[in-house]
């Protein structure tokens, strides 16, 4: 059968060669970013379907769901192409699906206390909650982690991170502490921290088992240890999926690679795609080496090397950067000095380095405006920094607004818990149920009433709460409007007072079930009062959306508390609000569907942009003096290198290792970004960073070196 490519774009000879390979083959395709591998993958998918393979027999396996988007799009663009659906899966999704489907088979061996009851699958949010539930008393009463001064939520998330690493690398959880300890060469105090980590890991796991709770690590472990070897589960998988496309395997984890390695012989065909110079998810457990090893299991190897993205100038800059970083790392074998003209064409810098950060922001926004004015599409511009702090994002957004430049950010400006709608609903609930003893502060209640009641500004709301709210009482704390002195009532207005009374009366009629089921209570509060005429959320679709997300989060929390072992000692609603106040949950961001991101400048942390895997014409790199471009995050409870599969048990982690890791990160990140840049990179340096510190980090020095050498060569 002749394959119709069905596409307007011209194929590269390399892509044509790939598509000429039989669709019964197992192909390992490698190449650097920008060589058209994923496009090759989508064409391969079409070829499979057009050759008569039912789409439901095709599995697209990716390390992160978003990376499957090109495959989804390619089928959606042609609705007549497939008569069934391809399956898109990550390792996490696969483990979760299989554990849920084959729970009756796996449960007797799982170690849970109630094998004949269904498990509760924990989300990141509920796992964090249970971790806090276990660790907080150890911190407060037993002095755990006493030598550390970090936010408690970071303690919980790093312990979870360790558990997850053990699962995806494939070592027992009781090796976490010993591994971290044996690699440590610094202060002895840190060894106690690692002992504490191990103790918390053990307690969390045994709590999960005794309550039928499955966090990510346990789901993966159960799948890998018990289900992957179960003929029932294995036959189900091999019967269901006959053809594999695994993209970005370099970003996937060792356990994914082991599974794929064992699974590959069972497929009728496979295309395994490997991006060279990548592995950006290393900190999340990605392992390039075991990904590359999949090559041996495939019968054909194909390499794409034609760069389809970079202009020759950007390529020259990339070569210069690569050579300089290699030199830094002590690799002097190759030394390529790029052409000065090419480098200066590919690189945009201010005539003089601004001293202060705001000046740099102005310069960046001006450059963006000029690019757009000269015909560049805003969607072809990204502004990147190693971290996009709130301050940085705010300053950039302000300046872009001033110059009327459309932009969007990788996330909205505040998390769910900080949304005024969330705070209003939770404050009103806390006031309604004084038995929870959460007693909202007067100013917070005033703020909530201001949001809730139309026509009540903050001054009036404060007046109202000054007279009508009794703080710290065990009785229902809201008094009727008539309790407010008449001269103050005049100032508040009778219309607002009447609305307040209606709300108050509604709240006063609460039932004990309302206290148990906060989500139902808030649903009713929103629908029966706050969305009605005269109240703040009337006809407010955005607030409705936020309230719906909050209520869903509460509902999931309530379900996660419903375990066979019970949690009777807890008031679930109160517990939820407390956890929100402590920042443990409701930390997610709500994306607005209405936002049109099609053609606007993208502001994001560099890694977020990389993992989206899309090339653009212009990139702005901010804060390039910052060491955050290459330094590890400060994570005192974990260590990604020590918990990786490449780590040898007898090794210690010393300053040289740290430096080598920094060079490696710098190279991976900067070359990865350049691979996704078509025309030009603008550097945004400033002598002082956003926090007012003077930074002259490696990346800045590398660029200076490239420019200097190129200029020298040109003379």
């Amino acid at each position, binding site marked *: 059968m002749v394959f119709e490519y069905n596409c307007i774009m011209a194929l590269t000879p390399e892509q044509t060669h790939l598509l000429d390979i039989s669709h019964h083959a197992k192909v390992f395709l490698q190449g650097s970013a920008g060589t058209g591998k994923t496009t090759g993958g989508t064409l391969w998918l079409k070829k499979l379907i057009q050759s008569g393979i*039912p*789409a*439901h027999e095709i599995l697209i396996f990716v390390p*992160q*769901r978003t990376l499957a988007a090109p495959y989804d*799009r390619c089928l*959606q*663009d042609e*609705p*007549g192409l*497939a*008569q*069934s*659906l391809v399956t898109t899966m990550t390792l*996490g*999704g696969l483990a*979760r*699906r299989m554990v*849920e*489907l*084959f*729970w*009756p*088979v796996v449960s007797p061996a799982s170690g849970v206390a*109630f*094998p*004949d*009851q*269904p498990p509760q699958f924990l*989300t*990141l949010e509920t796992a964090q909650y249970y971790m806090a539930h276990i660790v907080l008393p150890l911190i407060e009463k037993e002095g755990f982690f006493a030598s550390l001064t970090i936010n408690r939520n970071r303690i919980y998330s790093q312990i979870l991170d360790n558990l*997850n690493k053990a699962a*995806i690398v494939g070592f027992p959880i009781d090796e976490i502490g010993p591994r971290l300890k044996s690699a440590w060469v610094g202060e002895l105090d840190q060894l106690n921290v690692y002992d504490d980590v191990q103790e918390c890991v053990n307690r969390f796991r045994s709590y999960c088992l005794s309550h039928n709770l499955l966090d*990510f690590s346990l789901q993966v472990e159960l799948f890998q240890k018990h289900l992957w070897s179960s003929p*029932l589960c294995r036959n*189900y998988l091999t019967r269901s999926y006959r053809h594999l496309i695994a993209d970005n395997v370099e970003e996937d*984890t060792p356990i994914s690679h082991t599974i794929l390695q064992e699974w590959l012989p069972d497929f009728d065909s496979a295309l395994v795609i490997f991006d060279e110079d990548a592995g950006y998810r290393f900190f*999340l*457990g990605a392992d390039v080496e075991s990904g590359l090893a999949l090559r041996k299991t495939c019968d054909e190897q194909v390499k794409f090397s034609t760069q389809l993205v970079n202009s020759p100038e950007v390529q020259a800059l990339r070569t210069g950067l690569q050579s300089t970083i290699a030199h830094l790392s002590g690799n002097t074998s190759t030394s390529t000095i790029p052409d000065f003209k090419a480098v200066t064409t590919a690189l945009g810098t201010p005539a003089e380095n601004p001293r202060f950060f705001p000046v740099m922001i102005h310069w960046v926004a001006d450059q963006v405006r000029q690019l757009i004015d000269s015909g560049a599409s805003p969607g072809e511009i990204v502004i990147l920094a190693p971290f996009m702090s709130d301050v940085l994002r705010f300053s950039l957004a302000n300046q872009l607004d001033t110059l009327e430049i459309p932009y969007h950010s990788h996330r909205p400006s505040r998390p769910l818990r900080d949304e005024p709608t969330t705070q209003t609903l939770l404050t009103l609930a806390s006031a309604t149920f004084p038995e929870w003893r959460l007693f909202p502060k007067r100013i917070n209640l005033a703020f909530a009433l201001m949001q809730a009641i139309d026509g009540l500004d903050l001054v009036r709301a404060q007046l109202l709460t000054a007279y009508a709210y009794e703080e710290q009482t065990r009785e229902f704390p809201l008094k009727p409007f008539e309790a407010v002195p008449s001269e103050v009532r005049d100032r508040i207005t009778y219309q607002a007072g009447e609305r307040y009374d209606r709300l108050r009366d509604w709240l006063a009629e609460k039932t004990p*079930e309302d206290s148990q*089921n906060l989500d*139902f209570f*808030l*649903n*009713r509060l*929103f*629908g*029966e009062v706050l*969305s*009605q005429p005269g109240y703040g959320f009337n*006809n407010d*679709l955005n607030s*409705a*959306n936020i*309230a*719906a*997300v909050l*209520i869903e989060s509460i509902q999931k929390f309530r379900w996660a508390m419903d375990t066979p072992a019970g949690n009777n000692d807890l008031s679930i609603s109160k517990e939820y609000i407390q956890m929100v106040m402590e920042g443990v949950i409701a930390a997610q961001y709500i994306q607005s*569907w*209405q936002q049109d991101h099609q053609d606007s400048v993208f502001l994001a942390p560099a890694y977020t942009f990389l993992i989206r895997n899309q090339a653009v014409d212009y990139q702005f790199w901010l804060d390039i003096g910052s060491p955050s471009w290459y330094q590890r995050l400060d994570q005192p409870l974990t260590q990604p290198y020590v918990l990786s599969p490449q780590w040898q048990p007898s090794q210690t982690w010393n300053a040289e290792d740290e430096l080598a890791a920094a060079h490696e990160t710098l190279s991976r990140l900067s070359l990865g970004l350049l691979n996704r840049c078509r025309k030009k990179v603008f550097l945004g340096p400033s002598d002082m960073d956003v926090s007012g510190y003077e930074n002259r980090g490696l990346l800045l020095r590398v660029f200076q070196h490239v420019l200097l050498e190129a200029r020298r060569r040109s003379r």
Partner: protein
Amino acid sequence: MILSADFTFSQSNLQDYRDCPYRFYLRYVLHTRWPALVVEDALKFEQRGQSGARFHRLVQQWLLGVPEDRLHALVTGDPDPDLGQWWENFLEAIPPLLDGERFVETTLATNLAGHRALAKYDLVLVQPDGRLIIYDWKTSQKKPRQDWLEDRVQTRLYQFILACSGGVLTNRAMVTPDQIEMRYWFAPNRTAPITLTYNTDRFEQDRDYFTDLINEITDKPADSFFRTADEALCRFCVYRAHCDRGTLGGDLEDLEDSDRQPEGFEDLLDFDQISEIEF
């Protein structure tokens, strides 16, 4: 066009449009979520939805070959005593009917008026004589009338899509409509499934009907998605407060009468909806 080119039609969004164009607009064009109780007895409603989801899961597990004694242990430990009865009814009524190749929780697609349309089946049975039987498990207490079921968007779309795309299950190029049957089976009843047959006339009617419906939706300007005139449909609609069509949820027993499935719990079964932990 108000919908993106990649919008996928399904029985639930088409049913929404048929019930109330404005609901469709809020849900699928504006992507608005509105917090509200569907019925006042929210806890019971939730429990029924969850029991239904657990029952579907049990059937799925049984169909995939999970040993019956393990499923029995799960049923025995279940908090809802109804589930045990449903399960007993299932084992008595259904297994003798399942001669053929089983496609469990399978999704088929077709191109309708330039858009993708999907149908997600609890079970499609390809029988040795070439017949294709769609099974749909229901856990609602009340069994609706046959003519009502025949007119449902679900029935029409599921049969239509199977006629268009069932060939991918049978390895044959074409499936003819008269090979297709849809069986609704009500777990609380001990009775046999309600069987609805299909034929070429109905297939052609359905094709015209869905094509016209989708064209109507895609051609409609944003301000023409009007609110339904049938206010009874608003009782179980979460947008009722926004539409000024009442603030209180409906009555659970009335919901059963109307045979509208509890919304939201299907997601418990839909793996594609599971937000994966990004690690």
